[in-house]
């Protein structure tokens, strides 16, 4: 305890000294950490948007996206495992989907969906709000990742569990639903939450479609006030919302570990 506190203090003291003694430290302090600008960009002013207010949009984007991702990814993971030649085209689509959307950078998908779909001039689907195309892009990309997480979970459940369920007369679907998936999902909750932490940050990229979320609002502020404190505020907000999820994930992992150890003893 004593050693760890001492080393922590020393570590941060060294960093602080380096920052303070650097030649540009005064300018950086004014441009990034001016209390007035920090506060003003956070709550907004007559001429500028509040970064905090804009951050609400980020929260909305990832909350809505998460729900769709959890569902779509599960469908993809399950489809990928349906046996039988009849379902070959479905499996092919599922595999192609994961390969494609894990490979393409999010920002390109945003451009293609956000500018391409409205460009088609189709009734209804081409006239949605910008932020909807942002959500669609996030769902497309992250579902590919999360489907793989689900798949790893499903494959980690030993085949004997499925065999036991099937030999009791349960159908393939019943076995998946009652025996395999509940165990698989429980095991992948930590990596799933980890992906969601990534998703929370990536909501910032939706700004390329013109949606005014936190990063966009910060950019607007910095452009009009010639001060970067707004970016620091935006960064702070992202970290603030990520930490609880990160700690929650840690706790789940620790609980799982305890359980496994207890199970090994029994």
């Amino acid at each position, binding site marked *: 305890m004593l050693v760890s506190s001492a080393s922590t203090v020393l570590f941060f003291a060294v960093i602080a000294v380096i920052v303070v003694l650097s030649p540009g430290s005064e300018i950086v302090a004014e441009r990034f950490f001016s209390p007035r600008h920090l506060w003003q960009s956070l709550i907004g002013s007559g001429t500028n948007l509040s970064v905090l207010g804009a951050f609400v949009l980020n929260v909305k984007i990832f909350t809505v996206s998460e729900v769709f991702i959890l569902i779509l990814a599960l469908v993809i993971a399950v489809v990928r495992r349906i046996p039988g030649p009849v379902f070959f085209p479905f499996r092919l689509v599922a595999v192609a989907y994961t390969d494609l959307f894990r490979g393409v950078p999010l920002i390109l998908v945003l451009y293609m969906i956000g500018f391409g779909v409205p460009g088609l001039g189709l009734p209804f689907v081409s006239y949605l709000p910008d932020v909807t195309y942002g959500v669609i892009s996030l769902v497309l990309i992250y579902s590919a990742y999360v489907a793989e997480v689900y798949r790893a979970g499903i494959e980690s459940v030993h085949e*004997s*569990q499925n065999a*036991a369920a*099937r*030999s*009791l*007369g*349960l159908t393939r679907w019943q076995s998946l639903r009652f*025996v395999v998936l509940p*165990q698989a999902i429980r095991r992948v909750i930590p990596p799933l939450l980890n992906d969601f932490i990534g998703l929370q940050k990536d909501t910032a990229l939706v700004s390329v479609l013109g949606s005014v979320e936190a990063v966009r609002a910060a950019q607007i502020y910095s452009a009009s006030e010639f001060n970067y404190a707004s970016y620091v505020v935006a960064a702070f907000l992202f970290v603030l919302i990520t930490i609880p999820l990160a700690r929650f994930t840690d706790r789940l992992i620790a609980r799982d570990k305890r359980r496994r150890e207890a199970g090994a003893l029994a």
Partner: protein
Amino acid sequence: MNEGPALLLENVHKSFGENEVLKGIDLTVEPHEVVCLIGASGSGKSTLLRCVNLVEPIDAGRVVVEGEEITAEGVDANRIRRRIGIVYQSYNLFPHMTVLRNITLAPREALKQDRAQAEENARKLLERFGLLDKQYEYPDRLSGGQQQRVAIVRALAMRPHLMLLDEVTSALDPELVAEVLAVIKELAREGMTMLIATHEMSFARDIADRVCFLEAGHILEQGPPDRIFTAPEHPRTRQFLGRIIEAGRL
């Protein structure tokens, strides 16, 4: 449906790739008969049971259960499996479910029993085998013997006409074997038709109406336990039993 033998195997062949595990098995199990399969590991005992339960498709031959050929084209395997209970060496209980839920899952989902009825049946069975106080426990809180008894109860809850037991005591500590064997003896007394693969020779001798000695995918010899264990005809059977006696297991 209840015509002829409980189980009939005719010239059953099964290969895994190049390796032919069953090389023409003929076997009849009459209703209420207890048949034990003995033989070295890899002789095909487990594969035989898995073929009867349609876990493994057979390559040639027929499996007939109560007059119905279950290996024919287009037979609904799920319907057949509901009539045949199987218990594995490694219990395979569902770890995320309580004992009660483990037992009631298949009756509720496959037989569409309502919850109250399924739970009542399950509790009756648990009580009979001294496990009622464990109904709300999760499998990892139970001993191996208790888990295996729950696995047997889970299979019984489907009211099978035939039970297949695949070396159900092999994974247990020696002091837990007896409680599981007692359950099986109880089932035999009640007239359950059973096909049992086992390494417990004295148990086989005790419980079996007939013992089959498997060797390299064939049934080399079969007969009442007294004859098989005291006067085996085939030299390979004598050799196998000789080794068992040497190991102090008979």
